[in-house]
């Protein structure tokens, strides 16, 4: 056992075999024919690959981490290999003025040709002072870079929909790229973090076919976000047959039943997690017993929480969050009380009138 651990190849070079393997995985995720794999390989090795500017704004760098520390080394190597990262604050060697210079150089030299990847939301409140890089606000940087880019890939829920920064009350006025950029095509590779294969698929699709993949109404590529998690989930049969985990650790949970009743948001979330899975170990949240939290959806911090309930609470000013059914039952109770009072007044009136009539008769 210890021998095998020691003999793991720590070579960071991407060999031909790994390269073809990674491209094949991406082709499978894209759902394109194997006949297209040579085209993918050709595009990925082409000398005219567009440079990439990777902008970091309000984020945690988790998306970059996911791409670079994928347990499948070929995927992360391929990402570094096929895209020439001219500016990426996390992985670039240059720093300070040198870094800013390489950004400017790319902007000047490759205007209209480079790919821009945005990671992180853009704060717009108070002139965008909540995120500054090299003395400039995120809004300014995006306004300069976006019009010159051939296309923008917004990576992660921050760049696509604002993520937790944009959750109510959104103190910094955080927005996604598509809320601010209208003239350059923007594709949303959403998720917190997104699957590296979805990102790589989008890039390779662009390199191979010279256009962005087909998207849904929210700008997410259909090859990765075309189906709800629920519809491809391996626990779906348990759902249809009515077998559920009622709480974590109970009989149902231990037997791998559906996590719907402990708040799994698979039925409301579009992502390829059940089919592509994560980290090359055939795992994803639901497979290891935790419900989906809906991280690829807009406003997921506002609508998917509480994570272990089906629906968000009704927010009533002064009282706070109230469970939907509790709120419904309360209003129904008030309506029933009003009906009761109305009926009682009617009966009272009738009784008093009839006693008056009785007196008249006498």
């Amino acid at each position, binding site marked *: 056992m210890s021998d095998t651990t020691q003999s793991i190849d720590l070579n960071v070079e991407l060999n031909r075999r790994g390269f073809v393997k990674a491209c094949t995985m991406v082709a499978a995720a894209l759902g394109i024919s194997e006949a297209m794999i040579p085209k993918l390989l050709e595009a990925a090795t082409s000398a005219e690959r567009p440079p990439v500017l990777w902008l970091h704004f309000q984020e945690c760098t988790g998306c970059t981490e996911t791409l670079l520390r994928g347990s499948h080394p070929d995927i992360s190597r391929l990402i570094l290999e096929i895209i020439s990262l001219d500016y990426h604050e996390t992985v670039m060697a240059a720093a300070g003025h040198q870094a800013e210079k390489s950004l400017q150089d790319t902007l000047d030299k490759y205007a209209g040709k480079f790919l821009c990847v945005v990671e992180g939301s853009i704060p717009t409140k108070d002139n965008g002072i909540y995120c500054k890089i090299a003395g400039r606000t995120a809004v300014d940087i995006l306004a300069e870079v976006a019009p010159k880019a051939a296309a923008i890939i917004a990576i992660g829920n921050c760049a696509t929909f604002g993520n937790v920064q944009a959750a109510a009350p959104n103190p910094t006025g955080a927005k996604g790229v598509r809320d601010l950029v209208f003239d350059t095509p923007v594709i949303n590779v959403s998720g917190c973090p997104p699957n590296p294969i979805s990102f790589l698929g989008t890039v390779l699709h662009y390199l191979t076919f010279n256009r962005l993949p087909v998207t*849904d*109404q*929210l700008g997410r590529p259909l090859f990765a976000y*075309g*189906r*709800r998690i629920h519809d491809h989930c391996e626990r779906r049969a348990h*759902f*249809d*047959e*009515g*077998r*559920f985990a*009622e709480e974590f650790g109970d*009989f*149902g949970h231990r037997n791998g*039943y559906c996590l*719907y*009743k402990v708040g799994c*948001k698979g*039925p*409301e*979330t*579009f992502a390829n997690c059940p089919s592509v899975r994560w980290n090359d170990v055939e795992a994803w949240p639901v497979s290891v017993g935790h419900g989906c939290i*809906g991280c690829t*959806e*807009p*406003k*997921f911090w506002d*609508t*998917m929480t509480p994570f272990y309930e*089906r*629906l*968000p609470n*009704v927010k009533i000013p002064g009282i706070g969050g109230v469970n*939907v059914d509790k*709120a*419904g039952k309360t*209003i*129904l109770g008030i*309506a*029933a009380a009003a*009906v009761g009072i*109305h*009926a009682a*007044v*009617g009966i009272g*009136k009738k009784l008093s009138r009839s006693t008056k009539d009785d007196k008249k008769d006498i």
Partner: protein
Amino acid sequence: MIYEKYYVWSILLRLYHWCLVISVVALVVTGFYIHSPWTLTTLEGTGLYPVLAMRNIHGLAAYLFTAAILTRIFLLLFGNRHERITDMLPVTSRNLRNMSTTFCSYGYLRDCHDDERLGHNVMAGMIYILTMIVALFQVASGFYLRLPENTFWQKWGIILFSSQQHARYIHHLLMWYFIIFALVHIYLVIWNDLTNEDGITSSIFTGNKFRPRGIK
């Protein structure tokens, strides 16, 4: 007193009403089940598909509900004069007058009747129009949840409700509108039957209402 019989509610309206009743009851019961399945959740090897069955009933009832709502909207435009939208909203002086009469009779203020009127009172009419609007949102959110890959529903679903989760939340909240509506509606029908002589309850079965002879 001699009463005269008037034909008020067409067959189509009565059919709509009872389809709505059946579908709403089915939708609420199966809807609660889909929200939180209450059958024994550890059954193995039964060959039963309770959640699937409930979802199928929900879908079937949803089509009945949609048909009922579309029928009522058709009648709002092309029904008889009691069924049309112009008889239900406070847009004519006659309707405005009826609104104050209804308000005073529901509030036990005076002994007031609007004997010239056979259709809905205007307060009920306004609530029914509101119900139609709520129902349309319910239909839209329902189809968006049911057919997420359909481009038409995806487009409108995202415009109206943004994510699936938010649509589901709205769908669940609006269900409570129908429950509360049913309570108040049944109460007011009984109340009207006790206080008036037009035979409101039987009118939804027979289509006929009554009023004393001599009143035009």
